[in-house]
């Protein structure tokens, strides 16, 4: 088995000797212009185009390697600013890798300027629609007033109004989810330099009974981190035992805030 391919984890703009020091076992630092590329030599038995395609459909293999990808970048990130590469980016030769870096050096430099001194944090927000539905009258004037009408109506009319309320509850829950999602998003946005909104994931994927109502990544300047964390804690406390709750994870490598432009 020959380790003849170059797997790229990330790019750093720090001194190569520092990068080498951090990178340590199994990793190689390749210097190209002002950048240090953190790489590993891998075998074509695993990472040739054909074998990589086969391997990524093996979920165990993928999980192991995807986690390793992010762990290595995390380790480097603790000491220096990094531009993370997508999982499975492979170069056949050092020359072609260096050519790639040279071709995009302008854009890479701009990205380093954009992310310097900042961290990526992920915030997800969920709603327990069952709980919210049970206590909807506390949140919604409309359903509360309809409930009063139901109480004051004859059984026949009450039956029809209850059907109307069932429909109204769904609409009101949608409105409340949007309202709280937006409200929390705005709070975090105030403390961030950039925001990346991600798709809401279905319950089957999150493994939760609650519905995801916000999925966002925030690029937070280090000077605002303490306030950002305080906001997370404060909003979590406000919502203890409630229908809405948030989950924050980070710092992530700035995957969501890298944008590479074609050279002119």
């Amino acid at each position, binding site marked *: 088995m020959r380790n003849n391919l170059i797997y*790229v984890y990330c*790019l750093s703009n720090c001194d190569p000797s520092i990068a080498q020091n951090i990178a340590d076992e199994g990793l190689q630092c390749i210097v190209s212009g002002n950048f240090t590329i953190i790489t590993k030599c891998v075998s074509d038995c695993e990472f*040739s*185009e054909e074998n*990589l*395609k086969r391997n*990524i*459909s*093996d*979920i165990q293999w*993928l*999980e192991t390697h*995807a*986690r390793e990808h*992010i762990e290595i970048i995390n380790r480097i990130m603790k000491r220096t600013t990094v*531009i*993370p*590469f*997508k*999982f*499975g*980016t*492979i*170069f*056949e*030769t050092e020359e*072609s890798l260096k050519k790639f870096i040279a071709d*995009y050096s302008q854009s890479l430099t*701009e*990205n380093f300027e*954009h992310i310097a001194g900042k961290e990526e944090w*992920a915030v997800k927000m969920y709603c327990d629609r069952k709980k919210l539905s049970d206590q909807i009258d506390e949140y919604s004037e409309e359903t509360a007033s309809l409930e009063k009408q139901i109480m004051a109506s004859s059984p026949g009319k009450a039956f029809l109004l209850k059907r109307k309320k069932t429909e109204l509850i769904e609409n009101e829950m949608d409105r409340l989810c949007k309202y709280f999602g937006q409200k929390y998003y705005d709070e975090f946005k105030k403390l961030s330099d*950039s925001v*990346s*909104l*991600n*798709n809401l*994931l*279905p319950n*089957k*994927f*999150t*493994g939760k009974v609650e519905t995801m109502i916000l999925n966002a990544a925030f690029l937070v300047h280090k000077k605002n*981190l*303490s306030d950002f*964390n305080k906001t*997370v*804690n404060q909003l*979590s406390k406000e919502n203890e035992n409630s229908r809405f709750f948030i989950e*924050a*994870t980070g710092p*992530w*490598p700035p*995957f*969501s*805030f*890298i*944008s*590479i*432009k074609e050279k002119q």
Partner: protein
Amino acid sequence: MDHNVIDQSKDITILEVLDRVLNKGVILTGDIVISVADIDLIYLGVKLMLSSVETMEQLKAGNSGQEQRFKIAK
């Protein structure tokens, strides 16, 4: 810094990891890079792992919103 509700590393789901390492970061091609079609295959794999049937389409639909995300950065 107050970290008590912030989850540093435990319980990061594989989906969350994949969502970042496959969809984001420097995405221009190396000599070999996983193609978009392959990513669909990966989600198929995740789908099988989680025994979900209907979410595949939703995730695929979600992927089409990808371009916009990159534009937000700069």
